[in-house]
């Protein structure tokens, strides 16, 4: 029980820390062109729905002339490493503006235990540009093979 309380405290601390980092507004923080100003921090956030079926739900939605229909779409629950994963895509103006992971790591005692042990050790920081010299640079040149099925099903309903 002590461990769980500690884990929650550590997780909360990280969440507060990362929100703090985000709000620092220092010039070093690099944000992507499509960055969303959402306060959620997915590593530390637990799923809020208890979906366990592959069923689709459309929460809200309005028609749009081109692209996807505006609204919030929830994908099916897919089996992930420590439990199930479910994503939610938000469409505005026919474009995807946000993809949120709705995790479900509390489904069984094993995933709970792994979560309690592993998650507090994962630290977060806002990325910032470094100016020092390097010998070599690692970066992505190609993409990985797979694609999150849950997102696919979410978007198929937005079409």
């Amino acid at each position, binding site marked *: 029980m002590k461990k769980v309380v500690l884990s929650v405290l550590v997780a909360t601390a990280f969440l507060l820390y990362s929100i703090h980092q985000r709000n620092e507004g220092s010039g070093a923080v690099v944000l992507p062109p499509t960055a969303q100003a959402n306060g959620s921090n997915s590593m530390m956030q637990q799923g809020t729905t208890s979906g366990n079926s592959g069923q689709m739900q459309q929460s809200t939605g309005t028609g749009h002339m081109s692209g996807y229909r505006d609204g919030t779409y929830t994908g099916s629950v897919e089996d992930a490493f420590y439990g199930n994963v479910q994503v939610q895509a938000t469409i505005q103006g026919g474009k995807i503006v946000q993809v949120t992971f709705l995790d479900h790591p509390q489904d069984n005692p094993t995933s709970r235990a792994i*979560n309690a042990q592993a998650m507090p050790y994962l630290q977060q920081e806002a990325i910032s540009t470094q100016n020092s010299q390097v010998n070599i640079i690692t970066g992505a040149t190609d993409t990985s093979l797979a694609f999150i099925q849950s997102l696919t099903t979410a978007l198929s309903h937005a079409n």
Partner: protein
Amino acid sequence: MGMPVSICIVGGRSAERAIEAVYDLFEAVDARFSTYKPTSEVSRINDGLPKREWSDEMRTVLALCERTKRETNGYFDVYYQGKLDPSGLVKGWAIRRAAQLLETRGHRNFYLDVGGDIEVHGHNVDGEPWRVGIRNPFNRDEIIKVLALSDKGIATSGAYIRGDHIYNPLVPGAVPRSIASVTVIGPDAYDADRFATAAYVMGMKGPGFVESRPGLEAYVVGQDGMATMTSNFKDYVA
């Protein structure tokens, strides 16, 4: 593999011949495993080459792919929409083989870089650990982390970015994801490459997976510009 190869050997004799041997190795791997060359064995397998005609090298690599699939709970899968594409592992595997080749020729201080997947050995020209930068997934001209590495593999998996659009060239109609890039440090380029691929596919589960594997560390950059790192990643930060 159709991507830039960079090799640096510090000191040692016959470095030029060793580099030629490494290029020969990469060309042979590319000729067999390229998904772009219609004459490659991978392409011929996808065109229906019977299993009994597959080379021993192909069988070896596919066995490694199968093992990686088991180790990643199915997240690493070289069959996508029925087609074989082992490129998420072959690059790292080839780099590790090239590093072994250089070692057998007596070289101790070198790096091998194939399209951003790297294996470093020994030290750089200054006698220090190799300084490896992690590229900003949102801006190719920037580095967001500098690492000091020796005798390690490091690989990054992520999506292309062109202006405001992010797309996955391997998956038609792919859309932006929550993860911008995953960098994995491992004992060699083979482990770094295959687990970076798998961790990218896992999305937000990637850091937890890497944390659970001894000998691996990860730096995962989210689309929100926040990075998540595993517990001992900081030990490698320069």
